[in-house]
């Protein structure tokens, strides 16, 4: 039987940390995501970027707002179902209050041999349409060649004063 080729490839955690360093990110606020566990481990091994853990994605978005008002440059690391759970705070803080909010969102449970929109997992395939409905910009990170998506998303969140999502397509390595 022929194995299907992956369409989303792992991106190294160290490369993502390097990107965050290049953007002068000061804090990563996370609700632990299985998909990004190597990234969280890499962040825990260094001290330039503060790693904060929240109990819910609502909290993470709120902490991000406070950090931004205080002059920090935070980024979030969360799971895609957590993003769905926190849509009211996306509305209130990222859209209504216009707080720059850059989120690395992992597609936990995604079949990486299929595009996100073609996945059997309902939550995976509904993320992009949900973000389209809400008018939230997203930037797929489908492999190492997409690393610049992180910078594009971060700058978009700042320049447009709102949310921008990096969709982490495969588990980070």
């Amino acid at each position, binding site marked *: 039987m022929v194995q299907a080729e992956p369409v989303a490839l792992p991106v190294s955690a160290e490369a993502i940390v390097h990107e965050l360093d290049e953007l002068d990110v000061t804090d990563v606020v996370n609700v632990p995501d299985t998909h990004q566990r190597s990234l969280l481990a890499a962040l825990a091994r260094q001290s330039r970027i503060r790693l904060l853990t929240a*109990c*819910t994605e609502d909290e993470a978005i*709120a902490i991000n707002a*406070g*950090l931004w008002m*205080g002059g920090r440059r935070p980024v979030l690391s969360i799971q895609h179902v957590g993003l769905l759970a926190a849509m009211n705070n996306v509305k209130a803080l990222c859209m209504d209050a216009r707080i720059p909010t850059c989120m690395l969102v992992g597609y936990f449970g995604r079949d990486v041999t299929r595009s996100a929109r073609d996945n059997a997992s309902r939550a995976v395939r509904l993320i992009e349409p949900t973000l389209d409905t809400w008018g939230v910009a997203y930037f797929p990170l489908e492999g190492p060649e997409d690393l610049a998506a992180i910078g594009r998303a971060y700058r978009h969140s700042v320049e447009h004063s709102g949310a921008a999502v990096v969709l982490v397509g495969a588990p980070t390595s």
Partner: protein
Amino acid sequence: MRRVEAIAALIAERGDALTVTTEQAIGAWRAAVTEPANDIPDHLDIVGCMGSASTIALGLALARPERRVIIVDGDGSLLMQLGSLVTIAGAAPPNLFHFVLENGVYETSGSQPLPAEGRFDLTGMARAAGYAHTAEFDDARTFASALPELLQRHGPVFVSVRTEPEDGYLVRSSAGTKLDQQMHALRKRLVGEGG
């Protein structure tokens, strides 16, 4: 005690602290100061994201460790994001002072009782979550006299303030809150024009 008494004591001892109010505290704070709503210096009124005021305050406290941050929460609001007690305790900001006005009802929506009202213990939960110090008050004079010492403590500090329900107050008094204006103005004050 009455909510306005608790707020008056906090304003009197605020000093240069950044302050955050939500739900029932918004109107009482506005009524006690001379500045117009949405233009109170170093102050935020949090609406539209019930339960998030304390973690917005946490972000501020972590970003500005040189400033005290006072959050005036509601009991129903805190229950919306109860895990925030653990998140705050985990981050352990020494400059965060978390006051919860406990009136036992969801006043905004018509003063329906909180689930298990009279049986749960928010102060005990905060202590168990790992706050550095907890206290509770139901008398205005005792609260006002204890406040200076409380605000000198190493945080995070959690203080339950038992207040009387005042039906319908919030609905009138939080109208017109412009969260975007307040948040962007606060950032400008803290970071500067180019921030």
